[in-house]
């Protein structure tokens, strides 16, 4: 049986959105906003930018909804849009002299900026210090549980490139987080 990724309810909402029903699309936004916010936050390290990018991702997804063919999960398709917008945002910020990136990295490292615990704050600060493509590879493979193949499709690169980015990112993260207590496996 062919894998139909969207559930029945989801398919109905997509169909209704395609017919111009904004409330149907709002329901899709409600369903996936936490996931998309998580992706954009991990990529930017800033709640405000994550919010703005999540909104842009949903708007972009709406405009491209006709091209969603149901071969992948709707969530995977949305995630692809969000991660690529985040990478574009990173490139723009980088062209602006990395001021914002530094600010994001610094604020992620500051206490009292909303993180529930020290470990969460340290992990985000470490993610912020990775090159964007390596960070995207970690976000997709670790937090979104995508295989290297799926992540390669999301990022539009070779599977081997994803494998190397994950490899390089892991090595850097291990160095940055080595003092955190971890359960020996």
């Amino acid at each position, binding site marked *: 049986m062919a894998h139909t990724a969207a559930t029945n309810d989801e398919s109905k909402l997509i169909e209704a*959105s395609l017919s111009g029903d904004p*409330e149907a699309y709002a329901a899709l936004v409600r369903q996936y906003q*936490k996931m998309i916010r998580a992706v954009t936050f991990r990529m930017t390290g800033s*709640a405000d930018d994550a919010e703005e990018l999540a909104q842009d991702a949903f708007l972009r997804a709406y405009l491209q909804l006709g091209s969603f063919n149901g071969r992948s999960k709707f969530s995977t398709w949305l995630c692809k849009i969000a991660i690529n917008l985040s990478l574009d945002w990173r490139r723009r910020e980088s062209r602006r002299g990395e001021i914002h990136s530094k600010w994001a990295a610094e604020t992620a490292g500051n206490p009292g900026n*909303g993180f529930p615990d020290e*470990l969460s704050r340290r*992990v985000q600060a470490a993610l912020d210090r990775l090159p964007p493509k390596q960070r995207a590879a970690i976000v997709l493979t670790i937090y979104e549980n995508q295989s290297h193949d799926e992540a390669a499709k999301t990022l539009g690169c070779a599977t081997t490139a994803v494998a190397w980015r994950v490899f390089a990112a892991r090595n850097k993260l291990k160095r940055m*987080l*080595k003092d955190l207590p971890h359960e020996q496996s």
Partner: protein
Amino acid sequence: MNNPELESILKKARLPETAEETLETLPRRVVARLDRNDPPPCPARGFAPRLAWAFGLAACAAIAFAAGHWSGRMETAATPATDSLAGAKLIREMMAMFPNQIRAIARDDGGELRLILSDTGDVPASPPLYIRISDGKHSSSFVTFSGQEIQVNGQTITVLADPRGGIILAGNQFVWSSAERTSTAGHFKIEARNLGAVAM
């Protein structure tokens, strides 16, 4: 710290809580920005798939013809088409990530990749070389550089490039040169290409 331990730490990391109010406003803001009179463009469901296939096949035929036409002239610079290990983008990224450190990028026939690095960053800059060695049972692919050593079935093979782009492999029991235009050395079947024009 090993990979599972790192993964466990990364997965324990939580995000700052998002206020309920913020969660409620995002769908409204998105909808407010949609043009209600302009639904998203539907896919061209009525577009004849056969026509699309015909265009696709015609494009493939044209590309294949062009590739065949130019293959003779481009042979020395051609990337092994079936091996993504030799992809210029991957090699450029790796070289940028580990400048003067990469001794070899190796892949075994199980598809597992290994990056062999120099600790001291003493690998001189030179065009990357693609080597594929098979002994009939197993095969290994490498992207490496002139002067480096690769290990195949426990045998150390030194890889050398000459100034004209030719490649020489020197093992314990054989010496193979791309100039000799033979693909075998001892019990090894060898494919070697200079990727300089592709990756640099």
